[in-house]
């Protein structure tokens, strides 16, 4: 399973910290933005999903930092679907500035209902998620 999705993100001033570099917690927000863009491109935007009672809860996230990002950098998040189960998704994220790899992350997400109980990911979404060009 290796569907790859790319999202561009411009670093905002408030993303930087006292060292003048992007604060390490912001990478999680970048990864989230990439996930949300993926659902939009798959034709089932995240907001719609939530209105339909399907939520994703982050179960685990890790990130390795290789080089810092700075204000105004144009970054690219390359997201790979590592695993897509009945009620969970695993993503790999690679964050680039140009050709330079700045960070690598990994997330495990659980599909849950309004009450936080596990629920199945709809079949049509899985198909579109894996291949956004499907009509």
């Amino acid at each position, binding site marked *: 399973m290796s569907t790859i999705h790319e999202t561009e993100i411009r670093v905002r001033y408030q993303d930087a910290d*006292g*060292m003048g570099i992007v*604060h*390490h*917690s*912001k990478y*999680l*927000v970048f990864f*989230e933005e990439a996930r949300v863009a993926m659902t939009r491109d798959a034709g089932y935007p995240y907001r719609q999903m*939530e209105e339909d009672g399907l*939520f994703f*809860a*982050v*179960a*685990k*996230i*890790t*990130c*390795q*930092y290789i080089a810092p990002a700075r204000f105004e950098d144009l970054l690219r998040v390359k997201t790979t679907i590592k695993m897509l189960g009945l009620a969970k998704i695993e993503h790999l994220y690679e964050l680039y500035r140009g050709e330079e790899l700045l960070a690598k992350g990994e997330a495990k997400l659980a599909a849950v209902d309004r009450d*936080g109980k596990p629920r199945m990911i709809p079949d049509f979404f899985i198909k579109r998620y894996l291949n956004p060009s499907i009509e």
Partner: protein
Amino acid sequence: MPRTFETGIRVRYKETDAQGIMHHSNYFVYFEQARVEMMRDVGQSYKQMEENGFLFVIAQIGCRYFAPAYFDDLLHIRTTVTKVSKMKIEHLYEVFRGEKLLAQGSSKLGVLSPEGKLCRVPEEFASFWRLPDNS
């Protein structure tokens, strides 16, 4: 014995997200605050260390999320220094609300010298953080 320190943090409204729970990226900010408070508690100052030209950089960080935190929750971060090597300091974080464990994280930090190069952990920090079994 590993050195353990407890920090109390109250969840602010702006840290909650569209699901009404504390956004997962904020845990990294709480871990950071816990590290800074832990240093202050032993009479060291992160700010002073920076003014002396040394910076901590995050090499790797991760978190597992078990249950959500909400606005106004009073959380306790239990921070343990699990390892101090020549080049890295490792921490373990446990986030509690009362007796309930909400999340568990870990990080590896390196130190940048005044020349901006990764360097050995300065002795004044190493001597404090170092555990009996690797001193």
